[in-house]
Structure formats: structure tokens, C-alpha cells
């Protein structure tokens, strides 16, 4: 995100003789950082408000009373002259460090932080050579668990309060507190509230010393033994940027890699510690082929020949493919290509939410017909005025988005939660409406009904379609607030208020969970919410946005790449749609090819899979589906291959190989290439980048993509050159492509 340079005045100052220009309101520490000057800090954290507790960040500022000053709490002023290397500053820093070390155990050799510890580093760079303290140090029981995953070593705590401030102010979760005062100050667990936050790992990462450590990483390695690779978290559709830390052949931890536009520097525990599947000793290493009713280990050649031979004996209509929301874009693309080009079938799908009208008007690029796209951006949430969670629970499903919502609340947004199930964010929401499961679509329609009935519509789309709005209102006449309020036990007036605030807000964000659309009654939810957004101008407005929150790391990518029965990559409509997920599993095909999915989980009777003539499964483990397979091909995890994921706000990000592949297993794209060549497709892709290039030329949405362009922070795919950076989807004028309300039927 760029600095809002237009409206914030700039300030000039001098630090150690260097001229620096920064926006007004910046603290001196940040200005020095921009100028490339290190000032040691403990309590300050760039993503949190300053506290000024540790007294480590001293600088001397000319013409300021009582030097030295703390640079983390002092804002820059015009013409300020700052020195970071005077004798006074050096002495002050040495004093602070000597105090910090008085009771520090210095068990660096067995401390998990040793090697990347700020107390070590700053003592080395700025500390005194010796201590004058020769009394006994205080000692505590070594680590005590503060949560299921986190241990606290109180001897090492330097009371910087980063952890407590993060949980209380950023995550707004209970659990950690500061205890006692003065030199006794230390971190403790709130006796009345367990520290069970899904964001607890962030406290481990931000603790400048080894006081808070992760159970899963305990004594696993030392930092200098790790190989670090920038990649993307595979945990959910937010797509937080991570650094994958690998020792030899095991992922040992994921650390955050700040991307202001997506994760804002945080990770959730599910992503951070969810690498067990990669290290799982039970992963498949050898291809399996069913012989005499039993899966037997065979060579790759034999297994691949078996796949090609089995698939060739079936006619196109008898074959189906189930793709994955966890594989890369490149693999999803190749999967649909092998089925469409090689096996001539459109029976392709994956497990996803229900979205009407899955094709877009390619010529106009109109967004109106793509209700599965969240029209806002994650960063746009920061300054949204109204946030409506309509059957969405980001804390559980897209956790880091929950932190974004909390940031928006700090910036003054109001939060309304409308859902069937209680969620953790309820307690800080401004309004909570409990409804019956499956009622989300009815609520959306009711809100739209109020907007139409009370003439609250606004924006280009509504103006262009004004003549039709009366007819539209007529269609919604059953959805009066009164009726719906009675049905769900709500207050009609509350519903009206919500509709009015959405219509009046400078940016309302209305989101639902992708999977909520699968509940009976919510089949039209996606379209209903988009209608509401269009009529209240919350699609094109800055900081607004409507749409689904997807579940998995590449849920949107799988759609974009056409792992759907009715569209080719880039949502180009197909004349003859194939069978969908349910139809294929319900006996519509005789041969099924499953890549990285476990459809048995969604079947009431998984044993029905045994009736298939051919079942090919590519996966890392012997999943429930793979138990029924005729051929099982061992695949690689995200950490062992290259590719890209598309997150829920259309940001395509590079996934990089972080460790050597598991011997015996192959990446899904390699498997597809090998089968493709056995089917006579003559594929010559040497690496995923070759597939990326093909996607860029054949999928309009991904037109400009190259691996280089993805860089370290990804790139968002565009609708018709929209004004992305402002949180705006596309030009208002382009929206009403066909001049009618396109979605609700």
C-alpha cells in the first residue's frame, strides 16, 4: 500500500546528518528506519501504537528538554535534528541493557530464541561489556504453558508488553496480562480467561526474547540451521505471506512476511503451525495400483500407464475429474486442460459454494455477472464504515481477516454480525442478529427490499436501472422486515436500521462465507448480496465491497482456472456444460480422476465410490477416497513445489519450493504432464513457469501475469482496468453491462 502522500503533509528532518522526509505523524524511530539507521527497540512494534516502556530507543534531539528522548514515542516535527550516536545516547542504551540483563538467565545455548534474539543482538551492538551486578539472579520454574501451544519462561521476559498489547489491543482476545509492578513486572495468564486465541503464535514471533516460545518448535533447531523461503500460507483463502523455515527435510515453522495489503504482518495459529501434513511420516512415497482387490506398490511407469490405459477405455461422457482448492493455479489449469483436451469431457468440478451464473460476459468484462468475486480488497476494510458479516465467521475460517476487521473497528467502523451460529467476534460487534441457518439469503433480500421501498438506492448502477427498480421491489414484496423479523425473532426496526446504514455508509463491506451458500435456503445468497451491494453503491465505492469469503488457499484460483463444469478458464461460457460435483459422485460417471481432493468426506455413502470402474487419486496421503482408488499417485505439498495461489481478493501470489521433494512423490503438475503425454498430448512444460506463461496468454483475467510480476507480494487480477488501489473494483459506468438487474431470478 502506498503512503497516502496526497492528504498528509510531509515533514523534513535530519537524523545523524541525513535528510529525511516523512509524512506528518511518523515517529522518529520509523523515520530513522526509512533513512537506514537502526535504533534498538523492544516495546515498540511498527504495527502497534507506541508505549514507551522499555527505554531502549533513546536518541538525542536538539532543542528538546531533558535528553535523551525515546524515539518510539516522539513524533517528527519540521526541522528536527536527531542524533542517535552521541555519548549520552550510548550511555543511556548501555544503562538500559545492563538493567535488563540483571535478572536475565542468559541461557542462550538452550534458548529457542538464541541466534535471532534482540536481547543478544542489541547487547552485542549497544550493550556494556560487563555487568556490575554480582548478586544472585531471580529464578522461576522454567517454562510454564500459557496456552496449548505457547510456553512462557518468566526469567527471560523483559516486560516489553508486546505480547499483552497484541492480544488485548490487536487481537482483542483475553488471556495474557501484566502482573505486579516495578521490577517484579512480568507476564502472566489471566486466571479467569484462558489464552486460547487463534492468534497466539504472533506473540511468540513478536516477543523480542525467548520468553514466549512455541511448543511445536521447542528445541527443534537453531535459527542458523534453517533455510528460509518466502511463500504463501496454504491454510485459508486470505493468503497470508509467510516464510517457510525448513531444516533438512522438515518444515519447522512458518513466520510472517509482512504484506500490508493482505496480512498486515500477522498469521494465525492454524496456518503458522499447520505444517504437520508436510512432515507426516505416513505420506505416500510409492504409487499404488489395485491388483486382486488390494493396493500394491508399483513403479511410476506402471502406475502412469495404468491411468492412461484405464481412462482411454472410457468414453468422454463416462469420465469425470474432481479438482482441488489446495493445488496451484498451474495444476488446476493443467487438470482441466487434460480433461478437456485429452479426454474431451467437461465433467470437471471441485467442492465449492453455490454461485449462480458462473459465466461472464467476456466482451464487456462486466462484474455484475461474477457474484463469486469479493469486490473489495482486504486492505480496503481498514477504512470501511460498516462491516456486515452475513453468515461468515472469519475467526474460524479466514482468521487473519478477523484481525483486519478488528483494525477497522479501531478506525471507527461498526460491525454487524448476522449469523445462525454464535461466533467469537459477537462480543465486540455493535449489533448481533441470530437467525436460523439458511436464512442469510432472506436477510439480504429483506435489506434490499428496505432499500427499494425507502428509495435509499444510490450510485450509477441504481440510476441506470431506476425504471426497473419498482418491478424489482415487487418481486421482493414478501421480504418485508416485519415478516422476516417474526420468522427469525428479530426486531423489524433493526433490519431497517441495518439497511439504512448500508445505504448511507461511506463504504460498507458485506461478506458471507462461501460455504454458507450451500445451506438450504441460501442458494441465491451470492446474487442477493451482490444486488444489495449494487443498489447501495457498495461495489464501486472506495473501502466497500461485497462477496464471499472463500475457504481454501486456492478456492478462487480453481474457479479462475475453470475447474468447473460450465466454464473454461477465465469464465468463458461453454456451449455444453458437463456434470457437476454432485452429479459425478452420484453415479454420473464410470471413471473418476481426483486431484488433491477427498470427496468421500462429502458423501453420505462413500462406499459408492467402490462402484466406479476407474478411480484415480493424486494425494499426499491415503485419504478416505484413495482407499477406494484403483490407482493412487503420491503428490507433493505446497512446500515442495512452485506455482501460484489466488487469494479471496484476487491477489495471485507466488508459492515457492522450500524444501527438497519427498523422495518418490511427484508434483501434481508433473503427474498431469506424464499422463497427458501418455494420452498423446505432447506436453513439453518443463516447469510451472511454462504453464504460467500459457495461462497468461490463454486466460484473459491473468493476462499480465509472469512469475517475475508476482514478485514477493503478488499481483491482483483486474476487471477491465478497474481502479484497484482504492478498493474500487471497476468503473461505475461499466457495471450495468446489460442494463438490467442481472442476478436474482
Amino acid at each position, binding site marked *: 500500500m502506498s503512503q497516502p502522500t496526497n492528504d498528509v503533509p510531509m515533514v523534513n528532518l535530519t537524523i545523524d546528518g541525513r535528510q529525511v522526509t516523512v509524512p506528518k505523524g511518523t515517529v522518529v524511530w520509523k523515520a530513522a528506519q526509512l533513512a537506514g539507521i537502526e535504533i534498538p527497540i523492544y516495546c515498540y512494534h511498527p504495527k502497534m501504537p507506541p508505549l514507551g516502556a522499555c527505554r531502549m530507543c533513546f536518541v538525542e534531539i536538539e532543542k528538546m528538554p531533558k535528553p535523551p528522548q525515546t524515539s518510539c514515542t516522539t513524533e517528527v516535527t519540521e526541522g528536527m535534528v536527531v542524533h542517535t550516536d552521541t555519548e549520552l545516547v550510548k550511555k543511556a542504551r548501555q544503562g538500559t541493557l545492563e538493567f535488563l540483563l540483571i535478572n536475565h538467565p*542468559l541461557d542462550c545455548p*538452550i534458548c529457542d530464541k538464541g541466534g535471532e534474539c534482540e536481547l543478544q543482538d542489541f547487547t552485542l551492538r549497544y550493550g556494556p561489556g560487563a555487568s556490575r551486578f554480582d548478586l*544472585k539472579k*531471580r529464578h522461576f520454574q522454567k517454562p510454564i504453558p500459557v496456552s496449548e501451544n505457547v510456553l512462557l519462561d518468566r526469567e527471560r521476559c523483559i516486560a516489553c508488553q508486546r505480547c499483552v498489547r497484541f492480544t488485548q489491543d490487536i487481537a482483542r482476545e483475553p488471556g495474557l496480562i501484566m502482573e505486579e509492578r516495578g521490577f517484579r513486572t512480568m507476564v502472566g495468564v489471566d486466571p479467569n480467561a484462558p489464552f486460547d486465541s487463534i492468534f497466539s503464535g504472533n506473540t511468540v514471533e513478536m516477543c523480542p526474547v525467548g520468553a514466549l516460545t512455541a511448543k511445536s518448535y*521447542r*528445541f527443534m533447531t537453531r535459527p542458523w540451521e534453517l533455510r528460509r523461503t518466502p511463500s504463501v500460507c496454504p491454510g485459508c483463502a486470505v493468503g497470508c505471506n509467510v516464510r517457510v523455515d525448513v531444516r533438512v527435510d522438515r518444515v519447522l515453522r512458518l513466520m510472517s512476511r509482512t504484506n500490508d495489503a493482505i496480512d498486515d504482518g500477522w498469521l494465525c495459529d492454524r496456518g503458522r503451525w499447520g505444517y504437520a501434513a508436510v512432515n507426516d511420516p505416513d505420506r505416500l512415497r510409492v504409487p499404488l495400483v489395485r491388483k486382486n482387490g488390494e493396493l500394491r506398490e508399483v513403479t511410476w511407469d506402471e502406475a502412469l500407464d495404468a491411468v492412461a490405459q484405464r481412462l482411454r477405455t472410457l468414453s468422454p461422457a463416462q469420465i469425470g475429474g474432481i479438482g482441488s482448492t489446495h493445488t496451484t493455479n498451474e495444476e488446476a489449469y493443467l487438470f482441466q486442460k487434460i480433461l478437456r483436451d485429452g479426454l474431451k469431457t467437461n465433467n470437471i468440478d471441485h467442492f465449492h459454494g453455490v454461485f449462480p451464473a458462473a459465466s461472464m460476459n467476456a466482451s464487456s468484462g462486466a462484474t455484475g455477472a461474477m457474484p463469486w468475486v469479493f469486490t473489495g480488497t482486504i486492505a480496503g476494510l481498514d477504512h470501511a464504515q460498516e462491516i456486515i458479516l452475513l453468515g461468515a465467521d472469519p475467526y474460524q475460517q479466514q482468521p487473519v481477516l478477523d484481525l483486519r476487521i478488528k483494525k477497522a473497528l479501531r478506525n471507527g467502523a461498526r460491525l454487524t454480525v448476522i449469523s445462525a451460529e454464535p461466533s467469537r467476534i459477537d462480543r465486540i460487534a455493535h449489533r448481533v442478529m441470530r437467525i436460523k441457518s439458511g436464512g442469510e439469503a432472506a436477510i439480504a433480500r429483506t435489506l434490499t427490499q428496505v432499500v427499494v421501498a425507502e428509495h435509499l438506492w444510490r450510485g450509477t448502477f441504481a440510476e441506470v436501472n431506476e425504471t426497473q427498480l419498482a418491478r424489482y421491489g415487487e418481486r421482493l414484496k414478501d421480504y418485508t422486515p416485519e415478516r422476516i423479523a417474526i420468522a427469525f425473532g428479530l426486531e423489524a426496526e433493526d433490519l431497517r436500521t441495518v439497511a439504512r446504514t448500508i445505504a448511507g455508509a461511506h463504504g460498507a463491506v458485506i461478506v458471507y462465507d462461501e460455504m454458507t451458500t450451500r445451506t438450504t435456503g441460501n442458494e441465491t445468497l451470492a446474487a442477493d448480496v451482490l444486488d444489495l451491494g449494487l443498489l447501495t453503491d457498495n461495489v464501486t465505492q472506495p473501502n466497500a465491497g461485497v462477496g464471499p469469503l472463500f475457504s481454501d488457499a486456492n478456492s478462487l484460483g480453481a474457479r479462475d482456472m475453470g475447474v468447473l463444469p460450465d466454464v473454461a478458464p477465465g469464465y468463458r461460457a461453454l456451449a455444453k456444460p458437463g456434470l457437476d460435483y454432485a452429479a459425478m459422485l452420484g453415479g454420473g460417471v464410470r471413471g473418476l480422476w481426483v486431484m488433491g481432493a477427498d470427496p468421500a468426506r462429502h458423501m453420505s455413502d462413500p462406499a459408492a465410490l467402490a462402484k466406479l470402474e476407474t478411480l484415480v487419486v493424486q494425494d499426499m496421503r491415503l485419504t478416505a477416497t484413495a482407499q477406494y482408488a484403483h490407482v493412487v499417485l503420491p503428490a507433493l505439498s505446497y512446500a515442495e513445489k512452485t506455482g501460484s495461489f489466488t487469494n479471496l481478493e484476487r491477489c495471485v501470489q507466488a508459492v515457492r519450493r522450500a524444501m527438497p521433494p519427498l523422495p518418490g512423490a511427484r508434483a501434481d503438475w508433473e503427474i498431469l504432464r506424464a499422463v497427458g503425454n501418455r494420452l498423446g498430448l505432447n506436453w513439453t512444460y518443463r516447469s510451472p513457469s511454462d504453464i504460467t506463461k500459457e495461462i497468461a496468454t490463454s486466460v484473459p483475467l491473468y493476462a499480465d501475469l509472469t512469475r517475475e510480476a508476482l514478485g514477493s507480494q503478488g499481483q491482483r487480477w483486474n476487471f477491465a482496468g478497474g481502479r484497484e488501489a482504492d478498493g474500487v473494483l471497476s468503473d461505475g459506468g461499466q457495471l450495468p453491462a446489460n442494463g438490467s438487474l442481472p442476478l436474482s431470478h
Partner: protein
Amino acid sequence: MANEIIKGLSRTLREMGRKPTTVSYPEQHRSQPARYRGRHVLHRYENGLERCVGCFLCAGACPADAIYIEAEENSEAQRVSPGERFARVFDVNMLRCIFCGYCQQACPTGAITLEKEYELASLRPEDLIYHKEQLLEAVGEQHHGDNPATIGSNTAWQPQPPADPPLTIPQQRGTFDGQAASAAAVGQGNLIPDPSSPIQD
């Protein structure tokens, strides 16, 4: 001419009276000088606990990347070393090792030293990756006394500590003995809270 012959023979006769410098290996072994750096030995404390705390510092210092360690946590049921941490796996690849001795320099607990054993040969390379069981001295051998197996070249080549060294942290003994290095608490782990200390658990 005759002169030369007499000269040569006299040399021969003189040398014939001397003891030869070669020994008839392998029946006989030569004793090693004090600073000799042979195969590593992992040491124990007097009470039988292992000195190594699995800190990886030797592996970090090793220029040849010859040491591989996996650490684990001590439990009350299974206490291997004092403190919280011990090395479950400790491999030294003698094929890579250049016998530089950096590992023993780096060790904060004096756990690893290069000793006098030099018979490191095998027809199979995998034999030359020494595992912890081979490197660790047997219980009862750890009395440093006269046992050459565990003295270590440490004492011989460690520079003598200054009489009044500046301490980075206080140590009760007040002198730098080349073993506790800068981490007095390493290997001591759960210290019993000191009754005189202001805060107790």
C-alpha cells in the same frame, strides 16, 4: 676416496646404536602430544549426566558442516543432561571433519573435545559417521584424573585466563575457567529458587 668411505661408515655405525623412531604399528602405538586433535569424545559430569545440552553451537562453529544434532527435552522420567535440553542425536561425520577443534572451542559446557584416537579408517563410508553412542564416554570413565581418554586437548591449548577477567555476567567463581564460558546457567536449568532472591514462585 677412502676418506669418503670412512665418513659414510662412521655415520652408519653411529646410527646403528640409536633407537629407531618408527614403531611397529599396529602392535605398538605412539603416544600423542598434548595438543593432538583426534576423534571427538562427548563427556559426562561426575554424576553421570551428559554435559552436552544439545545447543548446536559446535555445529554452528564447524567450518566443515560435519556435526548433525537433534535436540530433545529432558523429562523427570528420563534425565539425560542437567537442565531442559539434551542431544538425542549427535553425529559427527569424520569424513568431513578437518579436526580443527572449533567445536570444542564453541561448546559452552565443555562437552565435546578432540581426543587422541586417530584410528579412523573403514572400507565403508557410513562407518565413519560416528553416532552419539560411539562418541559418548562410558559412565565411570569421566573422572578426568589420569585417564587420557577424557582430559581433552582443551586444557592444553585454551589460552590461560587473565587473573581478573571482565565478566559479561556474574559468576560465582569469579574467574573464567574456559568451560562455563558466558553462560553460567547452561545445563543447570531449573535452578532452585534462591531463598534470598526477592521473588519466588
